[in-house]
């Protein structure tokens, strides 16, 4: 019988804590346990044998840390071979091999993935892949991925398993006592991610004792439609007479775990501190328990690296603003690779209360595959919302889904053969919930029944790919009512039928309905309300529209989805404010501060005091009557100078300098908006390329320099952090930059800075180099060949002015 067959109809007993077993037997702190497969095979075989005899159906080979980060290729192969040979020898020594399986055990690499650490996702995948290939080659029956405390690394390991073998895969994570993974994922989010990618069983192991982890197991039982695994520690470790002692005994442990087996846990064992004695007690307590059938929870869920968002309760808002269609500034940001602009759009929508961000960066003239992948990665470093990947470019879709940390929403699939063939295999591999548009090769049917039939067809196709109905959300296509007066009613009728007759969830791109009409918000929000009343589960919408948000909060209150109308009341306060732009009164500061008279204008005052919104509002006001260059030269720059001098004279400090710089930035953004629309954009000063060097992920200092340089009118090309020498030199040459700024925070990364400077000297001798960062001094900077050491951002600005001047 294969493991998969066994799992289908049986409870599965795993083994205990190999790591702590080995420590008990003399493994020293810091010593590689995997080497014992070769140096102490008799001990390893004996431990496995004891577990099989105690009642384990599965033992994990001693391969927890067997990966290419710890061993070279040759040693890795011999270790994995020996580990599996040891497990097999133990099994063979037990007489019958019936219902005894051997797992290739895969633990975390011990490295943190980007963006939090420096390990690239694909590098993690390839390291796990090698372990998986060897495990399959040397006869493992299944893959057991365990103790993962980061969602992204878990995804990398599972992807490696799926891509490199056909063995069943069990995945368990280490949850902390806050009920989350170390990097913040909830059990619901992990269930969505892992089940979506096709794990055969999922669960929790390590970190805590059975009692403390019970809540996690119960959560997983609630969300998971695959068997749940429970493998806790023998309680918490304590130090007694210099020895580690775990505070839960074998009997108590077995009782606690058995209680969960009764509730539905199907795969169970012990982690740190548990021994064959524990497993024997556990097997005795569970061997009469019937396996609880695993049911499909039928939940439609997407997730990020922290949390899950479910459809079917309160309406789900999907922010539509990350999309270049009809947005001049957004298009320009894409062409300039100005990721910060896109990120700010994401963060603003999150602050407005959306639950998911739609991400569309498709436009002519850009490489959509790399742009979409990069935007997804960057968005996931600033926002914890799940993303909806929105592209018709299938390569871009795959690149984004592969890298996405969580279970993404896919926008979109439709009834066309070609679309189904492209999207469903990706969904099967990477997981996801797809928005399915009710159109096909014949276009969009005019009737509700036509759209309903396409929905049925799509569901049938999904089934043939092994994709569950719950992972399809139908969009019955809002068409503009100015072209066809019955457009909205057809859409709503189809939506209602799909919801009621097919039991599927639905989503609509709301804004289309009002295309070509004046005051579109009024139509959109009414349409939204109508659709909600027909059972709409989600809307792709504009969260900056106060009318739309009013409908959302009112609907929730009316539908009994907002206890005591708490959310409605909290939101209602902002309705009136959000509906109108900030109004500027002439004498705004007259009463607020008598010192306002010292400043030549309200704008200067706002910048110096660091008031972002006001600085933007005053700029907007002034632009009506004053040429923008005058505003820049007579108001913004003098204000910045005042603050800069204050900082240099130490009468004010970094946070105040930065608040002012941000206020100035918001003034400049207003000007940019104005000049982009009027087509009179100012020429920027010379170009400065800035980067944090290879190996270094500190970028606070670099970001400050960027902000200040931009405010002073320089065209800043920000390459980001951890940037290879080659990329810096290429950018300098491409932009013909007269100045490059490099930042390094660690003594270990200064050599990368030196190397970058050397390469610049060789290939771009025209470029001056300014350096900065905590470990640098003027002397050190000269030694590594820089032209200038700047002790802070203001000094960098001064130097840039010296080098580039006003050219």
């Amino acid at each position: 019988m294969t493991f998969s067959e066994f799992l289908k109809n049986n409870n599965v007993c795993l083994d205990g804590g190999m790591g702590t077993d080995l420590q008990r037997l003399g493994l020293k702190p810091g010593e590689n346990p995997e080497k014992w497969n070769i140096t102490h095979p008799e001990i390893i075989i004996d431990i496995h044998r004891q577990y099989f005899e105690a009642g384990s159906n599965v033992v994990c080979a001693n391969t927890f840390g067997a990966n290419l980060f710890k061993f070279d290729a040759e040693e890795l192969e011999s270790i994995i071979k020996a580990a599996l040979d040891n497990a097999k020898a133990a099994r063979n020594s037990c007489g019958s091999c019936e219902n005894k399986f051997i797992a290739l055990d895969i633990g975390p690499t011990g490295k943190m993935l980007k963006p939090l650490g420096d390990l690239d996702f694909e590098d993690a995948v390839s390291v796990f892949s090698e372990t998986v290939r060897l495990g399959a080659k040397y006869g493992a029956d299944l893959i057991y991925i365990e103790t993962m405390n980061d969602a992204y690394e878990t995804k990398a390991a599972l992807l490696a398993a799926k891509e490199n073998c056909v063995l069943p895969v069990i995945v368990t994570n280490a949850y902390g006592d806050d009920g989350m993974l170390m990097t913040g994922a909830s059990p619901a989010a992990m269930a969505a991610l892992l089940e979506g990618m096709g794990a055969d069983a999922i669960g929790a192991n390590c970190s805590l004792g059975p009692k403390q982890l019970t809540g996690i197991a119960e959560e997983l039982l609630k969300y998971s439609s695959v068997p749940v695994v429970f493998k806790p520690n023998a309680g918490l470790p304590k130090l007694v007479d210099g020895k580690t002692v775990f505070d839960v005994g074998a009997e108590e442990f077995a009782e606690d775990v058995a209680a969960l087996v009764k509730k539905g846990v199907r795969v169970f064992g012990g982690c740190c501190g548990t021994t064959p004695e524990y497993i024997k007690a556990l097997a005795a307590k569970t061997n009469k328990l019937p396996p609880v059938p695993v049911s499909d929870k039928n939940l439609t869920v997407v997730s990020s690296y922290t949390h899950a968002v479910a459809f079917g309760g309160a309406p789900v808002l999907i922010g539509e603003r990350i999309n270049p269609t009809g947005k001049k500034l957004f298009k320009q940001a894409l062409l300039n690779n100005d990721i910060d602009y896109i990120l700010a759009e994401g963060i603003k929508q999150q602050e407005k209360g959306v639950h998911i961000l739609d991400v569309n960066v498709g436009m002519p003239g850009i490489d959509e595959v790399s742009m979409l992948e990069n935007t997804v990665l960057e968005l996931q470093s600033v926002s914890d919302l799940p993303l909806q990947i929105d592209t018709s470019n299938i390569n871009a879709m795959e690149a984004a889904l592969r890298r996405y940390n969580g279970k993404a929403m896919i926008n979109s699939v439709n009834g066309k053969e070609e679309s189904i063939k492209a999207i469903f295999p990706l969904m099967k591999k990477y997981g996801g919930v797809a928005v399915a548009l009710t159109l096909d090769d014949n276009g969009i049917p005019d009737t509700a029944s036509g759209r309903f039939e396409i929905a049925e067809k799509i569901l049938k196709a999904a089934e043939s790919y092994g994709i569950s109905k719950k992972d399809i959300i139908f969009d019955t296509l809002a068409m503009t009512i100015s072209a066809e007066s019955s457009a909205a009613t057809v859409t709503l009728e189809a939506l209602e039928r799909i919801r009621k007759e097919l039991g599927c969830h639905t989503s609509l791109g709301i804004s289309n309905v009002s295309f070509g009409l004046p005051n579109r918000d009024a139509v959109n929000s009414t349409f939204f309300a109508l659709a909600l009343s027909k059972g709409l589960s989600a809307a792709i919408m504009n969260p900056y529209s106060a009318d739309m948000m009013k409908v959302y909060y009112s609907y929730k209150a009316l539908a009994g989805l907002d206890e005591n109308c708490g959310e409605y009341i909290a939101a209602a306060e902002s309705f009136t404010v959000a509906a109108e732009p900030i109004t500027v009164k002439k004498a705004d500061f007259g009463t607020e501060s008598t010192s306002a008279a010292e400043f030549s204008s309200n704008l200067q005052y706002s910048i110096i005091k660091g008031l972002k919104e006001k600085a933007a509002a005053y700029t907007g006001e002034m632009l009506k009557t004053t040429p923008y260059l005058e505003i820049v030269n007579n108001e913004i720059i003098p204000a910045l100078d005042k603050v800069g001098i204050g900082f240099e004279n130490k009468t004010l400090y970094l946070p105040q300098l930065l608040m002012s710089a941000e206020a100035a930035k918001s003034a400049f953004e207003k000007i940019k908006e104005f000049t982009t629309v009027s087509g009179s954009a100012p020429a920027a000063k010379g170009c400065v390329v800035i980067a944090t060097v290879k190996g270094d992920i500190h970028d606070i200092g670099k970001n400050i320099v960027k902000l200040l340089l931009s405010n002073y009118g320089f065209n800043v090309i920000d390459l980001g952090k951890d940037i290879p020498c080659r990329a810096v030199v290429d950018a300098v040459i491409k932009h013909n930059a007269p100045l490059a700024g490099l930042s390094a925070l660690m003594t270990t990364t200064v050599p990368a800075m030196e190397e970058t400077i050397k390469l610049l000297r060789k290939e771009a001798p025209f470029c001056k180099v300014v350096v900065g960062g905590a470990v640098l001094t003027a002397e050190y900077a000269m030694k590594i060949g820089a032209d200038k050491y700047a002790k802070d951002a203001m000094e960098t600005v001064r130097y840039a002015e010296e080098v580039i001047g006003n050219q």
Partner: protein
Amino acid sequence: MTAIITKTYKAPPIREKEALRYAGCRAADEETLKLLRSYIDETEDKLTYNVCYGVFPVSINGGFCDFGAFSVQSAALAKNLYGCESVLLFAATVGVGIDRLISKYGRISPARSVMIDALGAERIEALCDKFCEDFALENKVRLNPRFSPGYGDLPLASQKDIFAVLDCPRKIGLSLNESLLMSPTKSVTAFAGIVREN
């Protein structure tokens, strides 16, 4: 065999002046203080306080410090541990939540990013202080001032041994990157010499 123990703490009291000092403010007006407090509120539920530690025997020979499980060459550490028969080695972290905030605001508001970074520096220091204080009290010992890789001539490369011995990734989710930088960044590893009280 030395046991490696993990401990989770509640938030130690915040020392506002310290946080402001890390942000480069030697004096603070009401507004800056108000800002700091809003960041304290924002970060509160994003911070976790975890420590893993072990007690190791120490024998010093010139600048060579031998801890049984591993050893390191450092005259400065040897001097720091002079007269101690054992040493407390620990790793502490306040988690990735604050790194995420620092990086988020780095893209849209460097002012906030700087203040939250400073707050993180204060938080991890406060955690280390609290942990050492508790350890000394519970074990009725006195601890020498903490000493971390990078201080004096104690090489940053010694982090590799420390991480292996304390099993930091598994115990508290702390990892070391190729440049010997720690992730999460608001983390500390340190030695503290143990002096027996009479």
